[in-house]
């Protein structure tokens, strides 16, 4: 395993004292982070071509990570729309963090229809075919994790992460993230990756001082940070 190290550097103390602080850091994922196709072993394991080194995947795993700060006073909602596109037999993006009340539009950008649904949430997000070029909108009124699947291709795994606070961030391809306007207080930092929270740790945010966090996430269920 080659854990990545998330480093959060504090900004200058003058800035921290002047405004609500921010939480910054870097998150590292294990190198053997499960790829969607890994769930379906075939007769032959994939073979390297022997000519060129293996390139990084087109869709970075970091695009499926969401860092969330959960505190007692955090509460927010939004009634806007966010689009999750279905293209090339894949969700793009694969994970959508939204606030409670947000409407997610599932747009079929392919020519083939997809039947999008959320397992165990058939009451409001049941199976319904979305033809090519059409969209389906679902409004999420409660916080939680809502996995998204299609009936056609099991490898298509997406998730809608409905949050009641806007204290969340999506890291870039290198894993760096930043959460602004974090009030002083005690929080729980949780890392969401590919459908579930894989890491959580307590985080005390002081007043007027930025917090740097280094997170080494591991696949599997959430666990305490090192």
């Amino acid at each position, binding site marked *: 395993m080659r854990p990545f190290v998330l480093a959060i550097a504090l900004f200058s103390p003058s800035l921290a004292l002047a405004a609500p602080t921010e939480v910054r850091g870097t998150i590292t994922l294990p190198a053997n982070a499960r*790829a*969607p*196709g*890994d*769930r*379906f*072993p*075939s*007769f*032959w*394991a*994939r*073979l*390297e*071509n022997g*000519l*060129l*080194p*293996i*390139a*990084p*995947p*087109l*869709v970075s795993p970091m695009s499926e990570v969401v860092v969330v700060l959960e505190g007692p006073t955090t509460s927010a909602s939004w009634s806007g729309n966010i689009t999750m596109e279905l*293209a*090339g*037999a*894949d*969700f793009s993006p694969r994970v959508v963090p939204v606030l409670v009340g947000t409407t997610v539009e599932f747009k079929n*950008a*392919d*020519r*083939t229809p997809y039947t999008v649904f959320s397992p165990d949430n058939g009451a409001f997000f049941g199976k319904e075919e979305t033809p090519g070029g059409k969209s389906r909108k679902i409004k999420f009124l409660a916080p939680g994790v809502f996995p998204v699947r299609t009936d*056609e*291709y*099991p*490898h*298509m795994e997406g998730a809608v992460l409905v949050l009641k606070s806007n204290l969340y961030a999506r890291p870039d391809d290198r894993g760096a993230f930043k959460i602004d306007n974090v009030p002083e207080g005690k929080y729980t930092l949780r890392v969401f990756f590919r459908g579930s929270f894989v890491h959580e740790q307590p985080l005390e945010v002081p007043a007027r001082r930025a917090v740097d966090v280094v997170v080494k996430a591991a696949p599997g269920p959430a666990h305490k940070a090192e």
Partner: protein
Amino acid sequence: VVLTKAWLVVVGLALAIVLALALVVPRPAMRELEKEQVARLAHVQHASQLLLKVDARSKIDYAAHLSGDVVLAGALDEASRGGTDKGLHQTALERLRVFNSQLKMAFLVALDAHGRVLARVTENGEGDAQAWGDSMAGFPVIADALRGYRGEDAVAIGGKLYRLAASPVIKHDRYAGALVIGMAAGDDLAKRMHESLGAEVAFMLHGKVVASTTSTPALEKLPAELDKRAEEIAKQGHTPAVALESGANDRWWAMATPVAGEAAAQDAWYVLLLPRTAGTGLGGLVHAAGGDDFKSGYPWILVIMVALVALAGGIAIVWWESESPMARLRDEVGRLAAGELPRLDDRPFRGRFAQVVRSINSTLDRLVRSGGVVGVTTLSADRNMPAPSLREREPASRVPTTEEPLPASYEPMMIAGQAAPVSEAKVAAPPMPKLQVESQPLPKFPLEALDEDPTTQDEHLPAPSSRAAAKPGLPALPQLDAIPLDAVSSKQRPAPRPGQPPATPRAPAAQVATPMPVGMGRAAAPPSAPAPKPAAPKPAPAPSPAPRKPAPFGLPMEELEIAPSSGLVTNAVAAGPDGIAPLPPPPAPDFGDETVVSQPSDDLIDQSRGTGVHKSDLEAYFRKVYQDFVELKRKCGEPTENVTFEKFVGKLRDNREQLIKKLGCKSVKFQVYVKDGRAALKATPVRD
């Protein structure tokens, strides 16, 4: 019939055992056979995995080989760098057509480095212009190929099952895209697998058959089995052998394996099917047996021999135990009925047949002792006439007289071969026919019977008390020849028995010739007695020219009425040279169509008795003579106290023996008559 029953029991047990074996024996065989079939199916499943793996690898190699095409790589590289010229699409399309003209894949797809379709051709070489620009980067195998991996996968697209192989396309030092080849997992693949594995192959998607080498409807039952066996599938990677059947002739062993790759999550299976033996048990074997099974090498000879031996054994046992004794018994009884035999010989018979013979003989013996045969003869003459001797021998309280009707239940004993039905043989109490002794020759008196021990006298003899009344010291009887014989009047004769017609009054001083007892010789036969059948053996040559009829067997003397005689002796006795006058032949009875039961011959009667003359008859004869003599003395006014029966009989016996020894006659007849006003007794030798 013991052996017959035993044989039937053996045959029944043998059949039961054979049936039990026939039902049981196939079971272990079928069990082993099913084990073999299941094991073979497991081997086939393992082989199928190897086959699909090798095939997948070959497809990867195809993709890798095609992805090295420089022209295609150049077009993809240009497209990956943003080129949207249709020329790139056409170039890639042409190259794919060239490739697929040889490979005949379901489709070939060329994708740029971003996973967008530059060109796509189908199996028939047609291009899909609309596919240009589509993205396929979401498929794992393609995403891996865009990164540099070669791989393969199986996935269901649009309701069809495809196996995909992808390889990166490299242009110089960068990835220019990927080449994907798709093969339908359809009938062609199933056929090739069937040819290689020797098992039926079916591909199923979402519980429906998408390709198969067999069209059995039994596969419709497989999805339910898959749901039941999810745990075993997760553990073993495939189902165990599942018995499927949709009919007696549609029985399979099925083993389903998830199709490797993403298709497994799409509920895609390939199923291997091996036919199960058509039914288990005896029914299955019979059903499976064909005409050829009875041709080559079938032990027909053994089967036929066993059947013939069993049949012959059964027939032999039945013949030996039943048929043969029955035929012999039938013949014996026929001969008995025909009068050829006095009784049946039970020595050749065994078991129940011997019991039957002994029962018949016992019946005959009882009839003989009771004079029942007379009844037979009487029935021959007049079937409605009861046997007089039978009634005579029975106690008076039981046997009705001829004057009173017999009870309806009273039936004379019948002898086998007697034609008269029982209903007709019932005693109807008709008048008793008179038996005229004058018309018959005197019976032959077997001398052997006279030597019998008097202690063996039968039950008809007087009671021992009466016999013991003889006291020693009694005055000796006078010489027979010296005994005065008084005239016998008819009024001094015993009263006729009830039912008997009144006797004809005798002439005074008529000589009373006491007839010989039955069994002592030829007794006078009743006029109605039938003539013996010609086939019946003649007991002995009759010296008398007159045809003689055998005396009714056991006919008691009491039934014989002595006809009055004008002389001292009866006509029959006085007229013959030996004192017995030949009698005219009795008129032949007209029996019409009635079955005639002939009188057994004397020889046969003697044989049946074993000792010749029946001792009781001789004693009865002596008693009769004694009674006649005493009665005559009483009539003549002579004292009779000193004339005891024992001494009288002893005298008669001694006299008889002396005469027989002296004259060589066969018997002696005693006559009671009145001589000079006194009762006298005369002995007359009988020579035939």
